[in-house]
């Protein structure tokens, strides 16, 4: 009984957790206080022998009132259907808490709490606190749900018995075996573990792109983005970006003397250079990539003729990533790379970006030799003597009929130049720089504003950059960079968007920069010479501020811990999208293939070693294969025999006995194997021995149904009695005789036996 007595308390806790979770997801703290107080009060009012509940008419009236309030709520907040539904569930729960509490009412309360939690799940973005509440709710809910099945059944049994004539005869205490509570907990743990694993599999494997086709609110598919580096810039999706403080890695910048550089930053790490704009997204137009082998522990120049520059390189950059990446993050002016393991990299001579080919393992730790201000010869060597064109033919170029917004952008850029006093028509690298500076200065000043939340902006059919420039004038770094690059390109100024990290936070203890996902940034590079591109960051300076760590105190450490947890939550869970899914699957795929290959290599090495040891030569592999095959077959046969013995022992109860008679040795499974085979034969023939009947009784019963087999069954059963209970020993050669009897029995019973 004590197992079930705790159920109402658990159910109440589950409801409280659901209320808390919903209010946390809604960030409705006032509602949280009121609802939890009302719920807590209900416990002291309704529970106990002197508890009082609301009469049914009052409950019905309150439900009607709640429905009316919900209708009004729906009219006022029609776009927040989930919130309205959640609030309605919350009112119903509070009303039910003051209602009577039968098993059915408990079930309704649990269902409402589940609905409330589901509504909380639909909120975006769910905070970490909601995740914590959700976890506790899941654990509590599982155990409570299991307990509810038993509680409800017991209540129903007692209620039915109370109405019947045998009310006094029905036990009030439920009938249960030993250690029921421990078994229930064990089962809950097993179910919870299996459920979590399965749900994780479903979560990871569920194709995220399926719903796009029939989505009623298709633009919300990409509404949420997490901050982090992406090798492409897409302005269409992501109306709201969640800043993630997950640590991506660390970067140590040392001077020529090897000492850590004390430069406070920001420090820019280039990841991808994108110069082609199409339908709201940027990509790279470069098609030529040069393959470069990087031997382990060797400083490998990115181009030939850089040896002297590398020796005089004033800066060493050590990049340590938490996860392997196919993009080599490098600052501008990188001359050489060194890795602890042999790798192959691809260097793009057009934009000097470095990446690892897809067929090769990714990089996690590497060092870079950097000259932040390379001279002309070094730049020429880096670009391999191929100067970048003075004009990039982009789709926003003048005369492109496909983009009607291009004249608008160009007109807007000319207006800015006019205001800044920069001639609209010019030439030369200096003019390029002046144009870019003027446009960037305009973007950094009001009314342009930096924001990560653009969910309140109305999307039009125009190009997102045009919208940004002429309509909203609010956006994140990608919009600023895209606007500057497009305006430059519309004025024939070669410009490209660069995606990477801007490092702002330095660990005071180690002097290393800490790279977080939120440090992902986009800026612009403008051509200012045949081999020279200059970085221009049009994003308002307030967005890229130094984020220096505070001094290490307990509070700051705890805050950092919370930030880490929040970052992990938003990065790994909330922000898990199709891209993360594909990356994960690719990683698993790569890992699986590598594992299979490594196992194959080990087997081959072991076989070769054995072959060498026995000096068998080439034919030895045949011998080894044969021996392995025989061993496998022998193992399978042995396993089958063991399983059969185990089954015999279990079916006939030959295992170790407990209690009185434990010392009495029973027959070996092999000795009574014939009896087991006899039972199997009878079962297959459709005349199995009933559990309640003894073997001899069954033999008697068979005398009328299958007289041809009854005698043999009786004989075998008698012999089984002797061996099993009569302490008789098996005779020499009896195994074969009994086996023959069983075969004879099978023959008599028919083919199926």
């Amino acid at each position, binding site marked *: 009984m004590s197992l079930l007595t705790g159920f109402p308390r658990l159910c109440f806790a589950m409801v409280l957790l659901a209320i808390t979770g919903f209010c946390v997801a809604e960030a409705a703290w006032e509602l949280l206080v009121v609802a939890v107080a009302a719920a807590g009060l209900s416990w002291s009012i309704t529970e106990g022998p002197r508890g009082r509940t609301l009469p049914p008419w009052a409950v019905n009236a309150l439900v009607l009132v709640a429905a009316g309030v919900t209708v009004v709520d729906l009219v006022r907040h029609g776009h927040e259907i989930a919130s309205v539904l959640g609030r309605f569930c919350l009112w119903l729960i509070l009303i039910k808490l003051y209602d009577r509490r039968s098993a059915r009412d408990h079930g309704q309360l649990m269902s409402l709490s589940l609905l409330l939690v*589901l509504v909380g*799940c*639909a909120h*975006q973005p*769910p905070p970490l606190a909601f995740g914590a509440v959700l976890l506790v709710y*899941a654990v509590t809910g599982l155990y409570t*749900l*299991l307990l509810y*099945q*038993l509680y*409800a*059944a017991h209540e129903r*049994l007692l209620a*039915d018995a109370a109405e*019947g*004539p*045998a009310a006094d*005869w*029905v*036990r009030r205490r*439920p*009938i*249960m*075996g*030993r250690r*029921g509570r421990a*078994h*229930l907990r*064990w*089962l809950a743990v097993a*179910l919870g573990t*299996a*459920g979590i694993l*399965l*749900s*994780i599999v*479903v*979560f990871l494997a569920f194709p*995220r792109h*399926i*719903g796009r086709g029939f*989505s*009623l609110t298709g633009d*919300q*598919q990409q509404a949420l983005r997490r901050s982090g580096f992406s090798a492409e810039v897409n302005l269409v999706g992501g109306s709201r970006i969640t800043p993630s403080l997950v640590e991506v890695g660390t970067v140590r910048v040392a001077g020529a003397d090897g000492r850590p550089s004390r430069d406070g930053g920001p420090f820019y790490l280039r990841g991808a250079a994108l110069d082609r704009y199409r339908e709201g997204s940027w990509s790279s137009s470069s098609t030529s990539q040069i393959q470069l082998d990087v031997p382990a522990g060797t400083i490998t120049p990115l181009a030939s003729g850089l040896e002297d520059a590398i020796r005089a390189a004033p800066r060493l950059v050590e990049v340590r990533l938490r996860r392997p990446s196919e993009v080599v993050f490098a600052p501008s002016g990188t001359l050489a790379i060194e890795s602890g393991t042999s790798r192959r990299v691809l260097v793009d001579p057009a934009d000097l970006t470095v990446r690892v080919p897809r067929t090769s393992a990714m990089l996690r730790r590497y060092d870079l030799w950097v000259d932040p201000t390379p001279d002309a010869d070094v730049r020429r060597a880096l670009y391999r003597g191929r100067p970048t064109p003075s004009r990039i033919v982009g789709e926003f170029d003048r005369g492109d009929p496909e983009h009607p917004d291009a004249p608008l952008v160009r007109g807007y850029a000319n207006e800015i130049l006019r205001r800044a006093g920069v001639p609209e028509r010019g030439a030369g690298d200096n003019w390029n720089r002046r144009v870019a500076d003027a446009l960037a200065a305009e973007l950094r000043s009001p009314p342009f504003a930096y924001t990560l939340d653009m969910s309140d902006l109305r999307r039009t059919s125009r190009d997102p950059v045009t919208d940004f420039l002429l309509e909203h004038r609010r956006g994140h770094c990608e919009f600023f960079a895209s606007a500057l690059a497009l305006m430059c390109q519309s004025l024939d100024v070669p410009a490209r968007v660069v995606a990477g990290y801007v490092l702002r936070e330095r660990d005071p203890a180690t002097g290393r920069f800490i790279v977080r996902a939120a440090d992902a940034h986009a800026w612009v590079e403008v051509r200012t010479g045949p081999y020279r591109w200059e970085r221009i960051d049009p994003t308002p300076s307030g967005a890229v501020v130094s984020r220096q760590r505070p001094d290490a105190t307990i509070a700051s450490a705890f805050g950092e811990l919370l930030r880490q947890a929040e970052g992990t939550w938003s990065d790994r*869970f909330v*922000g*898990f*999208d199709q891209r993360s899914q594909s990356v994960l699957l690719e990683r698993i795929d790569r890992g699986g293939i590598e594992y299979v290959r490594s196992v194959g290599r080990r087997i081959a090495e072991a076989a070769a070693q054995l072959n060498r040891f026995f000096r068998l030569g080439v034919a030895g592999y045949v011998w080894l294969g044969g021996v392995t095959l025989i061993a496998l077959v022998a193992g399978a046969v042995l396993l089958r025999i063991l399983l059969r013995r185990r089954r015999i022992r279990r079916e006939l109860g030959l295992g170790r006995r407990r209690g009185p008679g434990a010392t009495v040795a029973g027959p070996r499974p092999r000795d009574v194997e014939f009896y087991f085979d006899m039972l199997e034969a009878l079962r297959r023939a459709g*005349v*199995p021995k*009933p*559990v*309640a*009947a003894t073997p001899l*009784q*069954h033999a*008697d019963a*068979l005398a*009328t149904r299958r007289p041809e087999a009854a005698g043999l069954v009786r004989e075998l059963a008698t012999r089984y009695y002797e061996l099993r209970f009569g302490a008789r020993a098996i005779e020499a050669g009896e195994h074969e005789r009994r086996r023959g009897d069983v075969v004879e029995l099978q023959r008599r019973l028919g083919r199926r036996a």
Partner: protein
Amino acid sequence: MSATPPPATRAHGPGEAGDPVAAPAEARAAAPRVRRRYRFRAPFWIYCGLTLLAAVVAMQTGRNLLFWAFGAMTSSLLLSGIVSGAMMTGLRLTRVMPDHGAVGTPMVVRYAVTNRRRLLPAFGIHVVEVAPRPSWRERRAGAGGGDAPGHDGVAVRAWTSFHDASGTPALHLGGDPPPWTRYVEPAPAWVLHVGPTETVHAEAVFVPRARGLVELRRFRAWTVFPFGLIRKAIELDEPRHVLIHPRVHPLRGDVLSSLRNRGTVGSRVSVQPGPGDDFHGLREYRHGDSLRNVAWKRTADRDGLLTIERTRPDPPRVRIVLDLTRPVRSVEPAEAARLEERAIELAASLVHAATGMGYETGLTVYGADQAPIPVRRNERHRDRIMASLAAIDLDAERPARPRPVGSSREAESVAVIVVHPDRVDLSAASPHALHLSARQLDRLVAEPERAEDERADAATGPAGERAA
């Protein structure tokens, strides 16, 4: 109603070997067929709807928590099926029937639930008796009624009409309910937990409604554990019988004590020596005899001691005669059947009361093909008489001539109580017999609060009121 002739009337324990009533050989030899059934309950469909809704909303909105919720709900569905399936297939159930039941008295039927799994415990196991559906072959053959094997689950050998204790027909339900429900009130059994490799007995408290032999054939064990979504059941065929005795009413104490006034019942002396007071004879002294019993005067002229032997008092002897030879024709058939049932109940009550007071009792039934039961006194004998009463088939052809009351020697030393359904027929027994009618049953039944007092009075002295 079925009218299968009654088998042997001995009372047997269920499952005894060679017992044609309790465990026919065919039934024992029958294979314990286990059928598995799945039933998707309303919560299952609601849950599936919620899961689909979560999936659709997750796909529409891209909310990762909803994807996780969808995963959790899907895995719960999967685990529910796996766990409940593994739980039920690992169970072994056996029905343990009581020795007998009595109308109006709750009867506990136990189900031994054994969990054969080594790790997985079983929770929330319900056990109910069911009426199995006929197979498609039987349905095709049109086996729809009677005692056809497999029909309605229970091939009830109905030897009696179905009336409850108040005399009203026990069952007036529409349709075709399982026949055993005419005899017993169906009741479920439930066990909360059965540990791995453990056996727990679930109890179902049946309330018998009418006397007769009940055969329970099939029962179902089911569970909705762990999540209440899928009801997984196994059904087992295990024919078992139980005999329902007639209802026993507590009679007034003066009913039997009034027999003494009629001069036919009293203290008698046995021919065997015993611990009585009267002189029986003399014998040689044996070691251990009390010196108080030594016949000193007779010993004086002998060499050895002589011991006085006393008589052994015999308890009163009563033979209950149930006269069913003359069908009651003066009333409606239903009322006539009710009266006959009441007569059987009155006879059973008399047997109980007489046995309780230490009388030796015997039974003779006129109008039924049953041999008279001699006068004896013990629990087993009483059960034998009750079984005989339970087995009376009122629909069978009744012998025209009554049989004589016991042997001639016995007739001289027993009191005879003749129970009639309706009117008293004095020719049914000797002139000294006490005649009772079923219509008097209500007057003969003791008030609950006075029953104990009257029983005490009856033990101390005779009461003067004549019962008939």
